[in-house]
């Protein structure tokens, strides 16, 4: 029994890892394609059919590039930076419920690497460790631009984590659990959290953009001011790791958005599908639905990138500390009043 669980979990972990890598890989192509389309161009279409092999060509190019090292006193940290960024980007996917369950070989297989009670806290923890990858890289580069980029990234991510955490609290007051599996199970059909917590969703969305360092919050690597930001001094596959980690982060944050607010793998008529077509088929559709939602959010990231210009740094801090945080606290209060309205009415003697 124990060995079967280990095999089952190993397979799930491998598949999730592969899918995360694949999605990150093809996000790079999608980014270039969407950018091109939104600018009335065609985009990369020479490598493979319609440019499908472009990510492989890019990877090959990065591997064969010269590995340049700046004259840095912190050679060890210089290597650790990209590794931390990459590993934290991949760690988050462990707690995501990709689907409800499969019924195979007389066993229920839960489509999740691990179902821990504090899944959401774990995600937040890992994301905040992700700052260190950028911070260490920028520090060890021994370059002013890298350092400024790293400091900007760090202060931005720390500020927006506060608003992000507070916006989630309103959601957690409703769900009453931190387990992502239970949160997804609480949103059957079209009872998605976004309809009950629209303000929380909006704040979370804005913070997710800031956390992944995407436009309009890409001050950490704004080319016009900082050359390349924290990865100015990086070359070859170390640079590739940073870029890859960014896309993996984007995939993960799109997944979290879909799971927390857009009903995860749930779709209207899932209960009917389970009854009539069986658990397996219903869940295959569920996984496809989840990925459709994820792809939409990834597209949304790219769509916004070519719409909204970059914030100025003081505007960024103003938005984070003086608008989003008070707004999320107000949201918590309103949620609390709505949840406890019966008790409050009794207390006030109505």
């Amino acid at each position, binding site marked *: 029994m124990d060995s079967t669980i280990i095999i089952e979990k190993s397979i799930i972990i491998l598949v999730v890892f592969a899918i995360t890598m694949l999605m990150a890989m093809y996000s790079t192509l999608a980014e270039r394609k969407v950018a091109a*389309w*939104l*600018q*009335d*161009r*065609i985009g990369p279409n020479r490598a493979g059919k319609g440019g499908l092999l472009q990510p492989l060509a890019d990877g090959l190019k990065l591997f064969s590039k010269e590995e340049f090292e700046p004259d840095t006193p912190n050679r060890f940290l210089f290597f650790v930076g990209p590794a931390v960024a990459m590993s934290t980007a991949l760690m988050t996917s462990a707690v995501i419920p990709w689907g409800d369950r499969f019924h195979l070989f007389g066993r229920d297989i839960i489509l999740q690497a691990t179902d821990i009670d504090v899944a959401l806290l774990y995600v937040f923890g890992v994301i905040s460790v992700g700052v260190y990858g950028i911070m260490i890289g920028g520090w060890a580069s021994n370059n002013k631009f890298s350092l400024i980029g790293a400091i900007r990234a760090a202060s931005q991510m720390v500020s927006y984590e506060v608003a992000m955490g507070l916006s989630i609290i309103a959601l957690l007051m409703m769900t009453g659990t931190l387990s992502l599996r239970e949160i997804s199970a609480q949103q059957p059909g079209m009872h998605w959290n976004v309809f009950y917590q629209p303000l929380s969703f909006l704040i979370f969305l804005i913070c997710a953009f800031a956390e992944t360092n995407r436009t309009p919050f890409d001050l950490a690597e704004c080319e016009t001011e900082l050359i390349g930001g924290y990865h100015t001094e990086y070359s070859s596959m170390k640079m590739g790791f940073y870029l890859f980690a960014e896309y993996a982060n984007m995939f993960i944050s799109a997944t979290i958005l879909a799971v927390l607010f857009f009903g995860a793998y749930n779709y209207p008529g899932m209960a009917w599908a389970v009854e009539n077509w069986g658990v397996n088929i219903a869940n295959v559709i569920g996984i496809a639905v989840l990925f459709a939602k994820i792809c939409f959010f990834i597209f949304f990231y790219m*769509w*916004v990138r*070519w*719409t*909204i210009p970059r914030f100025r740094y003081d505007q960024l801090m103003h938005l984070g500390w003086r608008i989003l945080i008070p707004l999320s606290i107000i949201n918590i209060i309103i949620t609390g009043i709505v949840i406890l309205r019966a008790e409050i009415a009794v207390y006030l003697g109505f």
Partner: protein
Amino acid sequence: MSIETISLSGRKKVVSNKEMTFFERMYLIAIVKGLMITIKHLFTRKVTIQYPEQVREMSPVYRGQHQLKRDEQGRENCTACGLCALSCPAEAITMKAEERKPDEKHLYREEKYASIYEINMLRCIFCGLCEEACPKDAIYLTTSKVLVPSSYEREDFIFGKDRLVMPLDIAMQNAQLKNAN
């Protein structure tokens, strides 16, 4: 009518610094509007020309590689007067004149000819002023789509008579065509 309100182009707009309302300051509607504008471009016709397969149509007044012409008998028209070099705004043309020997009458039309005629293709801007200046119909900018080939050496971009003069067989073909007409 005061001078501030006159608009000859009809597009004059007075800058307004009015205070934004609360909803305007949230920018949410503005952002949604912006998103709608960008998404429209997803479905517009793409302007890219897939170069090696598709070739952009050339202008009818396209000016390409220079050529030094020969007349119907295959003699070079150029008399090395230097007007092309004088008219060249980029100073790309240099030449050296020589007197025609009696046994070279079949090679050069005039009594004086250019023994060296060089155009520096790194300087040339293909304006066609040399063609306009030439009194002997000697230099023309062709419609050839073969552009100056790339090279590692600067010397390779200085085109001498070997690359500029019209090949003899083509001159003879042209003469035959003209006679036939």
